[in-house]
């Protein structure tokens, strides 16, 4: 018979949502580290050194071709053994560390491409104009190029957050206790009965978070767009 226990379904929500902060913490830290890594990559990509350019482009390709679960396993099982050779023991480190590192490495590849293309979307003439108007290189970057590049990058940034959120669900495979980890444990506790109810509840939670992220990004885009139009009208842009 097709059975769906609505009581258990509704009960799952508060149980799972209690672990939502951990999921958010994971996303935030991964994104932060990912942005830092991708900044390094994008500097290499735009730089003059051919070897560094090749390295960072190669990195992006390799990451794009790696399933996130494979990367997760490599980081979780591989990294402790690699650093053990140098006499460092990280076996007992918090699983959050490995999860964050995995998703930072994963998102850095795509983010560096996003950053590069949005940087290149700003016409060179703007930089030249700013420089000839007397701004320093750093000022030009900070005041002229980056604010505009950020607007271009925003939608893709949103996609990166969503992909970290979705791929992050795999962290349960190494025993990380986020929402998905909690769901598998609830199900195991009930001897796999009512698995469907819990999974559907979790799917709905993920869906709602994704929609919220999309809406926030859309809102941010509209705000920035409006400011741009206003600036253009006033003759500043």
């Amino acid at each position, binding site marked *: 018979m097709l059975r769906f226990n609505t009581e258990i379904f509704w009960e799952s929500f508060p149980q799972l949502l209690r672990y939502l902060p951990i999921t958010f913490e994971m996303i935030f830290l991964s994104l932060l580290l990912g942005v830092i890594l991708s900044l390094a990559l994008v500097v290499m990509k735009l730089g003059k050194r051919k070897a560094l350019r090749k390295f960072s482009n190669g990195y992006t390709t390799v990451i794009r071709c*790696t399933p996130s679960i494979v990367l997760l396993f490599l980081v979780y*099982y591989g990294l402790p053994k690699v650093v053990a050779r140098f006499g460092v023991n990280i076996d007992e480190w918090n699983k959050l560390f490995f999860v964050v590192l995995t998703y930072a490495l994963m998102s850095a590849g795509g983010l560096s491409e996003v950053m590069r293309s949005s940087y290149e979307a700003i016409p060179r003439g703007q930089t030249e104009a700013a420089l000839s108007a007397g701004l320093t290189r750093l000022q030009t970057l900070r005041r002229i190029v980056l604010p505009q590049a950020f607007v271009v990058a925003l939608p893709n940034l949103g996609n990166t957050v969503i992909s970290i959120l979705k791929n992050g669900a*795999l962290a349960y495979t190494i025993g990380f206790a986020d929402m998905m980890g909690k769901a598998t444990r609830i199900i195991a506790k009930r001897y796999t009965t009512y698995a469907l109810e819990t999974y559907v509840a979790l799917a709905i939670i993920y869906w709602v978070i994704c929609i919220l992220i999309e809406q926030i990004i859309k809102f941010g885009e509209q705000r920035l767009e409006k400011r741009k139009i206003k600036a253009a009208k006033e003759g500043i842009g």
Partner: protein
Amino acid sequence: MNWTFLYQTLILVLHGIPMTLFLTEVSLLFSVPLAFGIALVRKNNVAVLDKICAAYVSFIRGTPVILQIYVIYNIVPSILAVLFEMWGIDYPVYEINPVIYAIIIFSLSTSATMSEVIRSALATVDKGQYEAAVTIGLSGRQAYFRIVFPQALVAAVPNLCTLVVNLIKSTSLAFAMTVQDITAIAKIEAASGYNYIEAYLDIFIVYLVLCSAVEQIFKLVECRLKRYKSATI
């Protein structure tokens, strides 16, 4: 590093490639008509269906693939059991090959992304192209197949490449349904000998080669299709 294990597992893992490619190909095959249907429904704003398709695409794109796997893997057997009972089919539902479930899931999840790719590709072709084609005497069908689709395809190729690569990557989750693909074999080997790094390095390389090959093929296709592009200008 255990080199002999690395080598032995690599050979074993290679036996999983046909399964991974089979899952990818069949899922793609099934998702193409589904994606076209969704794209056309949404493009032509068909009442009600349009909203359902939008919700479907949003749901699939907003949930992790692993959860889709667990939901469908749990729900489809029960639905089938009810249906089989209704129609009086005597077939052991719980003995259905998990590969079939894998194909269902990957087709469904790919069709959502693909419908978006098709939609955005069709949007790149100017409406005037279709109108011009109809004006000079082509039928609607001819206009679509000879004028609109070839141009849309050029725009769609890079996105399709990403889609196929992502599909290959997500088939690595088929282990959750006990399908014996590349990842599943490596996981079993890794757990039996505690040689985790070696096993995962193997599949890392295998996926890298597979996905790079797909990217190269798409690059060739893109070069070939570029000749249609002159028509868009």
